[in-house]
């Protein structure tokens, strides 16, 4: 009850200022591969935080380290002030996890999937039975309560997985590629549900390799590649910082793109040559298009659009998000 106790209390206060999740110099090494390589970030309570990057960037590995189901090689990790490597059960007790691949029990009914999952948290049936019905309502699966999970569509299974992750009323929800493999309509339904949860005060941590998902869901995000963080900020900040306001996309046909690129090098502030098209970065896309025409080039197709996180990623890594 002397200096030591005081010191540890100070530590909690210092690290606990609104940050629910805190990573400092996080690394995970598999043999010679540095899957996560010195990653640092802080996630505030109630925030929606994204890890954007291509497959293999280290996003899922980072997520598993947060949940304490994978041991880090180095660095500091705290969730609500606890180290998940040491206090795994305590950390996971108030964590919701939506894995990349659904692991629902297809032989069990929709409702039993929720109830039995809730049991793993030590929650009593008296709490779980009404809770399951509320969650089914939320996931728009009430009519399917008694159906076997095997009979559900992909989008319904995903909604059920999200509903299941909420059974313990988590303060933090980890969503690993929540809408991969879903059709556009199902994705929008899910985004709506997740947005409402955030409004209700749940902290969301989302990994995705879809820039539209990151833009829809995330207040703030980090762009990851090869286990490192390339940039951090709100979607707007990132776009403003790493791209122009607009992008002109022109196609001259695969054979002619390279030749056209040489003649357009000084149009706009930057030029990217992709296999099938040229991207001309300019604050005024229409003006850039007029310049293209003025040089006697007539693209097969042209499109002026706003910059997106895809452009940010291209700028940072020289590659597309989805290879």
């Amino acid at each position, binding site marked *: 009850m002397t200096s030591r106790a005081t010191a540890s209390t100070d530590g909690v206060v210092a690290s606990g200022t609104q940050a629910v999740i805190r990573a400092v110099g996080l690394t995970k090494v598999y043999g010679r591969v540095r899957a996560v390589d010195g990653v640092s970030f802080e996630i505030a309570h109630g925030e929606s935080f994204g890890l954007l990057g291509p497959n293999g960037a280290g996003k899922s590995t980072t997520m598993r380290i947060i949940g304490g189901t994978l041991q880090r090689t180095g660095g500091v990790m705290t969730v609500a002030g606890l180290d998940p490597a040491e206090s795994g*059960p305590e950390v996971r007790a*108030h964590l919701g996890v939506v894995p990349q691949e659904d692991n629902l029990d297809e032989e069990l009914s929709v409702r039993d999937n929720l109830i039995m999952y809730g049991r793993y948290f030590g929650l009593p049936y008296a709490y779980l039975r009404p809770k399951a019905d509320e969650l089914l309502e939320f996931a728009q699966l009430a009519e399917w309560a008694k159906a076997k999970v095997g009979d559900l569509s992909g989008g319904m299974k995903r909604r059920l997985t999200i509903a299941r992750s909420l059974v313990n009323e988590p303060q933090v929800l980890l969503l690993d590629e929540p809408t991969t493999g879903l059709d556009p309509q199902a994705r929008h339904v899910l985004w709506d549900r997740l947005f409402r949860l955030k409004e209700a005060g749940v902290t969301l941590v989302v990994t995705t390799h879809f820039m539209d998902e990151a833009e829809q869901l995330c207040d703030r995000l980090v762009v990851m590649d090869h286990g490192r963080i390339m940039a951090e900020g709100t979607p707007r900040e990132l776009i403003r910082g790493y791209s122009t306001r607009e992008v002109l996309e022109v196609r001259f046909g695969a054979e002619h793109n390279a030749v056209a690129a040489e003649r357009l090098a000084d149009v706009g502030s930057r030029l990217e040559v992709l296999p099938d098209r040229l991207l001309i970065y300019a604050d005024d896309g229409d003006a850039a298009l007029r310049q293209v025409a003025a040089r006697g080039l007539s693209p097969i197709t042209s499109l002026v659009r706003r910059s997106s996180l895809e452009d940010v990623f291209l700028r940072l890594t020289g590659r597309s998000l989805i290879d």
Partner: protein
Amino acid sequence: MADQDLSHAGASGPPGYAVADLTRLAASGGVPDAAVLARRARRWGWWYYIEYWLVNAKAWAVSIGLYMVVMPLVYLIALGLGLGLLVDRGVGTVGGSGGSGGVPYLTFVGPALLVATVVMSVGGELTYPVMAGFKWRRLYWAPRATPVSPQQIAVGHLGGVLIRFVLQSTVFWVMLLLFHAAPSGWSWLTVPVGVLTAAAFGAPLQAYAAHLTDEGYQFAFVQRFVIMPMFLFAGTFFPLSVMPVYLQWIGWISPVWHGTQLARQAAYGAVEPLWLTLVHLAVLLLFTSVGVALARRTYARRLGR
């Protein structure tokens, strides 16, 4: 409290769930502190997995139940009554020395069949389903994301399976009674013996299955070269002692023989020296504890510690 929020709830978003409900959904206050939940899970996590296993087993209850009743009938009629008739006509009784002190063949083979059939069922329960847990259906990864630990998942899966064998052994024992094939007053002990033998073979098998990362074609090998030889050569149909000595080791190293000998003592009071009885028990307990330890370690490794 919910009502006052409802006013500005319905207006936005698709129908189905009002915002007021959502606040309650996200934090009703019905969930205890993380420390409380973690303490519960540390103590009872293995049992939570058993509960899940039992709910899951409900889907198969009818077919498993039917199997549990029909299988003893088939074996006892074919081997006990059919083959037994021949044996009894030929050598009189089995298991005694010099034709005396033995029992009818049905009595001799009955408890052994209980043990052997339970072990055969283990071969189905702790092979492919384990692989489904890690890989095919990723079922273990669901509890892994909760306060329940990988070690508890391993113990829980084994525990659920053993509960099935409590039932299966009990049904078999009742059949033995109906066939008048378990004369001893201690014959009910064949039930725990059956379950212990299932654990002694099941736990190492579970550890082995957990360690496989490919498609599990090795299980067919286990079936043919481990389970079948145990069934045929580990003293189920004839005393191990009538086999040539160079084949008797198959019995000595197999849980089936040790379980069978114990079951015979329980069912009709087969006589064995005390030290041998203790050896049977020790072997079964050793197989079980080593198997459980290995399974726990392997589950922890594969699911991340």
